């Protein structure tokens, strides 16, 4: 029984690892490409690692757009949206699940 369990577990791990790699490869490629020069990124066949990781690319992007205010805007939006939507959804869910009131079923179907 012990060996059987380990074999299955190992198999499961292998499958999950392959799956994880597939999920992650685009992100890895994005990070790697972000550190390449234009000629490095347009090589045939593609080069995986940049010779030297070009931090300049990040500097150039940071300077080209007002990222600080973008981040602040996004942050504010997230806070308010999460707060209000969680609140409103919880309220609505409570009402539909626990309370009984006329028109409840119509509203539920309509809102889904």
């Amino acid at each position: 029984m012990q060996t059987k369990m380990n074999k299955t577990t190992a198999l499961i791990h292998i499958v999950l690892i392959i799956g994880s790699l597939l999920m992650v490869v685009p992100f890895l490629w994005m990070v790697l490409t972000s550190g390449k020069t234009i000629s490095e990124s347009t090589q045939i066949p593609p080069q995986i690692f940049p010779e030297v990781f070009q931090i300049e690319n990040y500097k150039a992007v940071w300077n080209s757009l007002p990222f600080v205010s973008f981040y602040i805007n996004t942050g504010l939006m997230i806070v308010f949206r999460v707060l209000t939507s969680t609140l409103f959804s919880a309220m609505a869910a409570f009402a539909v699940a626990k309370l009984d009131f006329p028109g409840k079923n119509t509203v539920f179907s309509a809102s889904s």
Partner: protein
Amino acid sequence: MLKNWKKVSLATVLLSGLVLGACGNGSDGEAGSGDVTITYSIWDKIQQPGMEAIAEAFEADNPGIDVKVEVTPWDQYWTKLEAGAKGDSMPDVFWMHSNEIAKYATGGVLMDLSETYANSEVTSLDHFPEELVELYSADEAVYGIPKDYDTIGLWYNKTLFDAAGVAYPDETWTWDTMLEAAQKLNDPDNGVYGILAPLNRQEGYHNFIFQNGGYVLSDDKTESGFRLDETIEAVQWYADLSVKHGVSPTQSQFAENTNLSFFQSGRGAMGFFGSWMTGEMANNDYTAANADVAPLPKGKQAATVFNGLANSVAASTENEEAALKFVEFLGTEEAMRLQGENGAAIPAYEGTEETFLKAYSQFNMQVYVDQMENAYIKPYSAETARWEDVENSALMPVFDGTTTVKDVAADIVAGVEEVLANEK
């Protein structure tokens, strides 16, 4: 318990509403009390430093006015502007383009600037090329002040030319000399193409149409130029660079990589780029070192498409006085010089072009200015995007080699003229 809970939740909701409302209004108030802030909306971030230099100079002379330069990328610029027009929340001053001027002028959302310029002490409309002023006017009213003009140039890769032993392009070049050179420079085994000729209008085949004596739209804007053999011939010749001679990448290749990326990675010996791309060429290490520009080759005649942007004011602006003052300043020699010096674009004000030339002295920028002698205004109408789309869709298979311009010409004529007819 419930009642307290309810109070807390109500309070949170109300509070968030208040704070959000305050946040929305508060951001304009940074300028300080009594200051007027006007927004100047543009779409080209390469030109942003130039525009900000102009804004600063204006603010120095007008301490009560703050100018905020906003960049919205081209893809979203017009959607945003149109939404603003409908909701009366347009920027105060903004760039206008020949594609869209007819729509905005007839829509009544632009302010007439003719009086401001007639009464101005610091500038007047005489300093700008007549066609550009006309382009942005309708029935005596002037809806846009010319800002710059642009023409198309033939960029080439000096290193590739040297390696192949071909002489650099110059004003004597014709279509045939260009094709010959492209064939010599073509090196498909190493992924290098003699010339980059994508399916592109302003930088592409429209120039060739004019060079062959054809036109794109008739002067009265009712007929499509694809009725003419000259037009059909020119477009086919341009497409054949890829399809027949193989000296230009295929349609599929261009769908994946822009002509600019080919040129900047040293995979294209020649390419057609407008003067507004000069900043890109200068900022990229490879092209800064290896590229230069020459006039477009001659067909039956020399010709280039030219266009010019304009500065317009929203009819619904709340800061009319400040906006008009700024748009007046934008048309002065000083502002135009600043524009050129910062390499933003070729300023429209007569006599100030040299600032732009000096900004990019490493390239042969004179070419762009000289070509104005043979320039044809970029074809436009009230619904430019629509008929351009007809041309685009019909020509895609031509550039792929599956059909010819002659076969699709009738469809183009029908489609384009339908759009033009609906505009009336």
